[in-house]
């Protein structure tokens, strides 16, 4: 599906109804899941899903094709999720899950050890720990690993530089390692 959706050629922008249908079929589930990863609530995620595709429908004519449709839709979703997270109610919720780990400096030689820990971690535990990451790290991990975007696409979706994305990925992995080690999942 992505092959046809990556460009706008297969997408009939003149027929908004049909285009919307195609886009919802292609990315609807992913957007739901992405929103859930941000907001950790199904109702809110469904709300974001509706907002995203309403915006897509209304702004389809403004899509210039400078990025892929997928990146464009993801960027809308990410922005809406960020807005929601900034709202007062969500802040109150997030206060409970404040990240307590400080920035961990990571030396290049440590990378192998990190991968070893991550590879050995139980999948469910790993998912749980990813969900506990601060949002700026969680989003890069999810877009890069879960949505399998490359760093350039992640950077476009998040409106960051490629360097920043790489650096955040680097730190996110370090944090995951620290969290998994604390939880007793390290295999020395």
């Amino acid at each position, binding site marked *: 599906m992505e092959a046809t959706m990556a460009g706008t050629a297969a997408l009939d922008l003149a027929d908004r109804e049909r285009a919307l249908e195609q886009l919802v079929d292609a990315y609807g589930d992913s957007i739901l*899941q992405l929103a859930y990863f941000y907001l950790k609530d199904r109702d809110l995620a469904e709300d974001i899903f509706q907002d995203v595709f309403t915006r897509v429908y209304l702004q389809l004519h403004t899509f210039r094709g400078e990025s892929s449709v997928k990146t464009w839709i993801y960027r809308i979703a990410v922005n809406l999720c960020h807005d929601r997270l900034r709202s007062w109610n969500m802040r109150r919720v997030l206060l409970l899950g404040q990240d307590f780990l400080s920035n961990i400096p990571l030396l290049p030689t440590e990378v192998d050890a990190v991968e070893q820990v991550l590879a050995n*971690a139980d999948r469910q535990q790993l998912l749980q720990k990813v969900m506990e990451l601060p949002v700026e790290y969680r989003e890069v991990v999810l877009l890069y690993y879960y949505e399998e975007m490359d760093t350039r696409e992640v950077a476009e979706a998040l409106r960051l530089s490629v360097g920043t994305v790489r650096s955040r990925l680097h730190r996110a992995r370090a944090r995951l390692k620290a969290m998994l080690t604390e939880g007793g999942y390290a295999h020395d």
Partner: protein
Amino acid sequence: MTERKRALTDLRPAAQETLFAGWRVTPELKAKLRARISQAEAAPTRKAPKARKPWQRWGGATAVAAAAVVTLAILGQPPVVKEEARPAEVSAAAVTDGYGRSGAPAEGLMKPPGSAEYTVTVMDEAGPPLSGVEAKGKAFQVVTTGASAVEFDNDDTAVTAVPAVEAQPGRKIVLNAEYQLQVTDAVTAMQRLQTLAATTAGYVVDAALNKGHDGSWAGRLTLRLPSGQYNGAIAEIRRIGEVQQERQWSQDVTERYYDLEARIRIQEEYERKLQELAAKATTFDDWMKLTRQINDTRALIEQMQGSLKLLSNQVEYSTINILFTQPAPGKEPPPPPDEDKGLWASMTRAFQRSIDWFGALGQSLLVGAAAVAPFLVAVAVFGLIGLALWRRRRTGPSA
């Protein structure tokens, strides 16, 4: 894919197994999206209101709250729509025990077999229930499930038995009631209500009992009882305490119920045909399209089945909310709301409330002053010391 990437992409199956199991874009969600788009298209484009500063928001809210408090204090509490206490018994000419709505045959009446005693509560379509036969200015007809029906005249008193109308079997009625009681012993009342749930094969959805600082009690309970036990339960609830407010209402969901059933049947038939077509599909694209359609249809069927199940449960079990209070010992219960009618009484009451309010305000100010007193003393002491030092320094060189 590198080892690094493999480790974390295991997230996908993990998430699909747990977080997102069975969760996807359903036809219902698509319908919601359509509705939101229509709404967005219909809404005039307008500039977002300029964000106000927090103090502006609080200022407005405080002003509104203060105005509301002052208004309430001066005018007394807002008028409450009250039911007039009416006798619930009707003459034995009528054989009905249930409730109805004005202008339409009552639905789902349940009369204990062989009973000649009954209670009628007539539900006005636009307002609260009218107990007894004194419904003002409207003709009511109540169709019973028994052997006769009752007609209420415009003169509010006449009750006429009319030829029997057979209740239609299979009617689907949701019964609900709300009661506010004043009891002499809240703990016993709670126990009796819980026993009521147990003896009628119902259950308690929610229950809470709180004791106030002054020794008063307040409790609430939500019961779900088999609809066949509804009338008996209502009678028992009335015996538990003095009824202060009462509301009963019903909802006829017969049409919705059977409509859902029919739609499920149609969708199941449609799904079966789609499956036949999918089995015969010759191209991958056709098969894919049909499979997607089958999935959507299945999701719709399951959603409708869920709604039908919920509806059945609502029909089978009536919901009764009960609030009850036990006044503080030695404290006179508040007068019934029907008392003290008239302009003079209202003015007196409003004046009394204003006095109470000002008294409470005075008390609050005194408490506030007591709370800040230590700080004021500390500030005064440091201020005096500072002042003394300053004077000494000023006068020092000249001395």
